[in-house]
């Protein structure tokens, strides 16, 4: 299990250059910075089509493949190649958006997880295809407005639920799966520090607010991430060996989901019925997680 850290435990050394062309208040930029701060410079980074390559000035060998579905393949190839030249010490890390993870990249992700490739897969989830203007992905939450699930007479946003990828990957029985959030950098870093020492396929799914796509004020990025965790919309947990599950943050009482939903333009249209529906689903999910917390689940 990851060991608790405080903000003072976070490394000073920056592994990312400042001055990137990301949007103001970009959650993904914070994610990238924190991940490579924790991994250090003896790592290699893989990215595919997403916001990340266009803006993250990260100071480690970087492999960008415009083959959108190829994240898993690139990570596999680099990892095996490093093994062949005797450099298994280099940590191969993918910084992949939700699109390249849950949709077009899903086949590859499952394949790499099943083969237990020696890589760390970081999904920075802004819950839509933000780089191409904000179309829905299967990581978009139900009812969210996107450019392909607009709000109009015939449409109330996305109709299906968010795909639960962390659990799906856990069922591949990989060494480590966890969720994290930009608002909890100590938790995020502790999990990476732990995962770094393991071998095999490690997966981390990180909540990454997008002010441009979600219609939020850039200054609220962290606040929204925090409220999402505190209302149970984004539970923080880890699963070891696809079996042992542990919540790493347990608010005593969940905040109502309406608080964080109301801050976001993509949920501006929600009526009371829809908010209740989201609240019910969230509360139910949370109690389920509480009931399996600390147990062997699969």
């Amino acid at each position: 299990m990851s060991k608790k850290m405080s903000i003072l435990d976070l490394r000073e050394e920056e592994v990312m250059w400042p001055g990137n062309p990301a949007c103001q208040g970009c959650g993904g930029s914070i994610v990238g910075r924190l991940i490579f701060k924790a991994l250090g410079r003896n790592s290699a980074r893989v990215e595919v089509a997403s916001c990340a390559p266009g803006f993250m000035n990260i100071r480690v060998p970087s492999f960008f493949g415009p083959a959108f579905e190829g994240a898993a393949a690139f990570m596999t190839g680099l990892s095996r190649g490093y093994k062949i030249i005797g450099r298994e010490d280099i940590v191969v890390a993918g910084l992949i958006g939700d699109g390249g993870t849950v949709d077009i990249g899903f086949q590859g992700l499952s394949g790499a997880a099943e083969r237990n490739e020696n890589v760390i897969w970081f999904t920075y989830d802004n819950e839509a295809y933000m780089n191409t203007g904000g179309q829905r992905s299967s990581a978009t939450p139900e009812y969210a407005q996107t450019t392909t699930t607009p709000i109009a007479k015939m449409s109330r946003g996305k109709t299906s639920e968010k795909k639960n990828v962390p659990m799906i990957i856990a069922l591949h029985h990989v060494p480590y799966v966890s969720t994290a959030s930009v608002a909890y950098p100590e938790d995020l870093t502790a999990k990476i520090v732990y995962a770094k020492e393991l071998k095999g396929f490690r997966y981390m799914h990180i909540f990454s607010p997008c002010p441009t796509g979600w219609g939020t004020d850039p200054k609220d990025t962290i606040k929204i991430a925090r409220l999402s965790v505190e209302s149970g919309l984004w539970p923080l947990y880890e699963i070891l060996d696809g079996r042992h599950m542990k919540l790493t943050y347990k608010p005593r009482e969940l905040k109502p989901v309406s608080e964080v939903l109301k801050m976001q333009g993509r949920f501006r249209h929600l009526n009371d019925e829809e908010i209740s529906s989201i609240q019910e689903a969230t509360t139910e999910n949370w109690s389920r997680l509480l009931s399996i917390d600390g147990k062997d689940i699969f």
Partner: protein
Amino acid sequence: MIEIRFHGRGGQGAVTAVKILAAAIYLEGKYTQAIPMYGTERRGAPVVAFCRVDDTRIMERDLVHEPDIVVVLDPLLSRSVDVTEGLKPGGLVLINYPGTYKETGLAGNFKIITVDATKIALDVIGRPITNTAILGAFAKATGLVKLESLEEAIKGELPSRIIATNVETMRRAYKETSAQADASGLKQAKIVKKASTAPLISYSRVVSDWRVSHPVIDKAKCVGCKRCWVYCPEIAVSIVDGKAEINYDYCKGCGICSEECLVGAIKMEREEVQ
């Protein structure tokens, strides 16, 4: 044929502006082309868009390299981008500027017209999206399109709930557009592409002129908790002698530091146009 080039920053609506303009002019019976320039840039980064106007269908498919008119949506943009490059001699520059033509720093064989589009936008819409203000000014400055045509054209481009405020913005800008002035006697201000002060091995760009406001730290209140340091997406905050400090070259003014500071040591202040 008349060729127009728009300069703006991502988020100010330059691309939408040329579309509205093209649609409006088409309503008046002319042929138009609206061409955006997309790259991997995002909110705040310089963007360009082009518009062509002619009596017959326009066949050219390349970009506009010698515009007759240049429109600048951001007052600071002309300090880091050569906005008048290729402008035909005797051409016109319409620039969003809170001052007179002499203060813009632009000079050459062309005319200048100014309008404080940012102020108008902030007053009427509440956000610094200057495109409709600039379009209102464009109608007055060039006479190439009627205000009524623009008002009709916006209906096709903007969501219905913001049409009224944008029409008001256009009308006010139309009124507040300056007279035409001659820029040939003036002295051109240096165009400085600010280089990063980061070490040699670096691929940073200076993003300071993307800001609308910037954070100011009250060191007396700062307790060095590092929250602003950890949450800054731009790595613009560092802790020096236990207090937070900001490298303004890299700050985009997102406001996260100010929002996350638990002791109220960081306040956001509006940028001044120098």
